[in-house]
């Protein structure tokens, strides 16, 4: 429940004032409908107000409508920091650096895909490793892996795993330039260099979905994004930087704990909120290492797209481009990026932390692919494997949150509770009866991801629209799923 000092600004915006906690430099703002606010656990409010105490924070400490308790920052947390006076915090990015979503169109309809859905899902399950300890098909040296972590999707283009259009339709064009692999530990490389092209587990998935005519909210914008025919089939997948990113976050969290208070005099509230000044040697080293994980994650999703194109090409006996396998967009969830925003009447350079939150640039902004610029950045919000997901677009009023919106539906049930309530095998059968064919590497993992363990995705999307953070374009419903 929200604390008693939480003030209603409007139906989807709530504010916790600076007086709530000693040391808060800005108020905290939570975007949520009343039911979503009520479903948030108390840690969300403690965490979002802890973030408000960090040096150099600009405007507000934000939480998105799908917010739930995280480490340091809440999941759904967003905070921008002045690049000269502010901090960088691994807790504001998460262990799975650049965990993100990619959406890919096809020119196929459900009527064309339905007879081959089991074959497609089975082949994708074989080609895109999922689950504990999954290894990818690329045989890379550690040195080559370090190179790709600096080059991102440009490396994929050179190696034939991408086409230029894929880079053009990825946030940051699939490469953050300020990446320096010399700032990454041996252990991080050892954990990640065999994992390119793998999904991982937990809430990671690869899904075949359908855009049904009744679920198109804005036909014109859907058409601009490449969804232009009834019952069009698309693919959506969710994964991140695997062991590589997890180790970079672990390494620098421990390094920041050593200097945060003793060297930089930043008060200590929560070890997961460890941070260092952005301009400090420690802050810059983490930024450059973290950017390597962002790039690696872009490569991971690109190599998965390469495998998807291979599978569709084999099953339908056609070239992937003949099948319309064009990427719609790729968004990141867990990052800190330097962006220029209007703040206090001036354009300022800010380090924007988004943890379980999505950038949602408005129509006309630089950084959006040319073909989408008039309608706004595509935003992909993933739901549970039962309820569907959304494609949305950024809006002008997103300026209020430095153009940030939600990323998913957010859990409402613990993993053990879900395992007690559902059996993976029963769920698989029930979903098949509902027309969703699933392959999983773990039945217990499948039970943990049951639709009932998540918030109502429609309610989350309505809240982002009502709050003026993004607007829905089309809801996509699952017909096939590979669960990590």
């Amino acid at each position, binding site marked *: 429940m929200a604390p008693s000092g939480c003030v209603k600004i409007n139906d989807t915006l709530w504010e916790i004032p600076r007086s709530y906690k000693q040391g808060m430099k800005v108020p905290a703002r939570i975007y949520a409908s009343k039911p979503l606010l009520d479903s948030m*656990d108390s840690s969300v409010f403690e965490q979002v107000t802890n973030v408000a105490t960090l040096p150099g924070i600009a405007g507000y400490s934000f939480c998105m409508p799908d917010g*739930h*308790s*995280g*480490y*340091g920052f809440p*999941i759904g947390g967003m905070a921008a920091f002045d690049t000269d006076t502010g901090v960088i915090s691994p807790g504001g990015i998460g*262990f*799975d650096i650049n965990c993100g979503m990619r959406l890919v169109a096809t020119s196929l309809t459900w009527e064309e895909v339905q007879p081959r859905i089991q074959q497609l899902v089975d082949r994708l399950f074989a080609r895109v490793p999922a*689950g*504990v*300890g999954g*290894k990818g098909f690329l045989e890379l040296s550690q040195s080559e892996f370090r190179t790709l972590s600096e080059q991102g999707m440009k490396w994929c283009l050179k190696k034939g795993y991408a086409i230029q259009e894929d880079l053009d339709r990825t946030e940051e064009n699939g490469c953050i330039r300020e990446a320096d692999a010399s700032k990454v530990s041996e*252990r991080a490389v*050892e*954990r*990640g260099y*065999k*994992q390119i092209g793998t999904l*991982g*587990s*937990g809430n990671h998935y690869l899904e075949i979905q359908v855009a049904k005519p009744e679920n198109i909210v804005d036909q014109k914008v859907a058409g601009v994004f490449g969804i232009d025919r009834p019952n069009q089939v698309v693919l959506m997948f969710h994964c991140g930087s*695997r*062991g590589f990113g*997890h*180790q970079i*976050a*672990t390494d620098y*969290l*421990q390094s920041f704990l050593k200097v945060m208070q003793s060297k930089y005099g930043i008060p200590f509230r*929560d*070890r*997961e909120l460890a941070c260092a000044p952005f301009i400090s040697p420690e802050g810059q080293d983490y930024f450059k290492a973290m950017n390597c994980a962002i790039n690696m994650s872009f490569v991971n999703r690109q190599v998965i797209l390469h495998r998807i194109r291979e599978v569709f090409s084999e099953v339908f006996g056609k070239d992937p481009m003949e099948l319309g396998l064009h990427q719609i967009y790729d968004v990141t969830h867990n990052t800190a990026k330097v962006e220029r925003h209007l703040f206090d009447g001036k354009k300022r350079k800010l380090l924007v932390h988004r943890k379980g939150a999505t950038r949602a640039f408005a129509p006309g902004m630089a950084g959006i692919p040319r073909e989408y610029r008039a309608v706004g950045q595509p935003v992909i919000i993933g739901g549970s494997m039962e309820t569907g997901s959304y494609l949305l677009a950024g809006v002008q009023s997103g300026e209020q949150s430095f153009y940030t919106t939600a990323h998913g539906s957010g*859990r*409402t*049930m*613990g*993993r*053990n*509770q879900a395992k007690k309530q559902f059996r993976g095998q029963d769920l698989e059968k029930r979903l098949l009866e509902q027309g969703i064919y699933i392959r999983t*590497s*773990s*039945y*217990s*993992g499948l039970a*943990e991801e049951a639709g009932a363990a998540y918030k109502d995705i429609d309610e989350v999307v309505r809240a982002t629209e009502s709050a003026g953070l993004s607007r829905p374009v089309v809801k996509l419903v699952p017909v096939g799923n590979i669960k*990590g």
Partner: protein
Amino acid sequence: MSYRYRDDLSMADVAFEAEGTSLEELFTSAWDATLRVMIENPSALHSNSRRSISIEDRSIDLLLVNFLQELIYYKDAEALLLRLEHCRIEGGTEAAKLEAVASGEQIDAKRHHLGTDVKAVTFHRFSLKQEGELWRTTVVLDV
């Protein structure tokens, strides 16, 4: 040696409480709890590969966190799931040193009932303390 999972401490991830009559027992329980998240039938692991673990840290908290990180490291770097054979801890709650041996085998999805991948050991709600005769810890794993 024992542990139990606590949904009420973490909605999205995995929290557990472990206890032991010595630090060695406590660390072993915490290792077992972490391994059990990734494999439901750890007894199916054959002891084909053996790894020695040697860690020193400035606090017992960090020693436990970094000890559990070893299990996660071998899972990713070598696709190995390891059961703990024994561990020995020297030092107190400040500077402490650990020597351990773990054995297991490469992940085999046909024989191993796999669970959820563990990404990291967090400091969220972390505690390690002695209560009477028992050492207790609370750990949240990012999955």
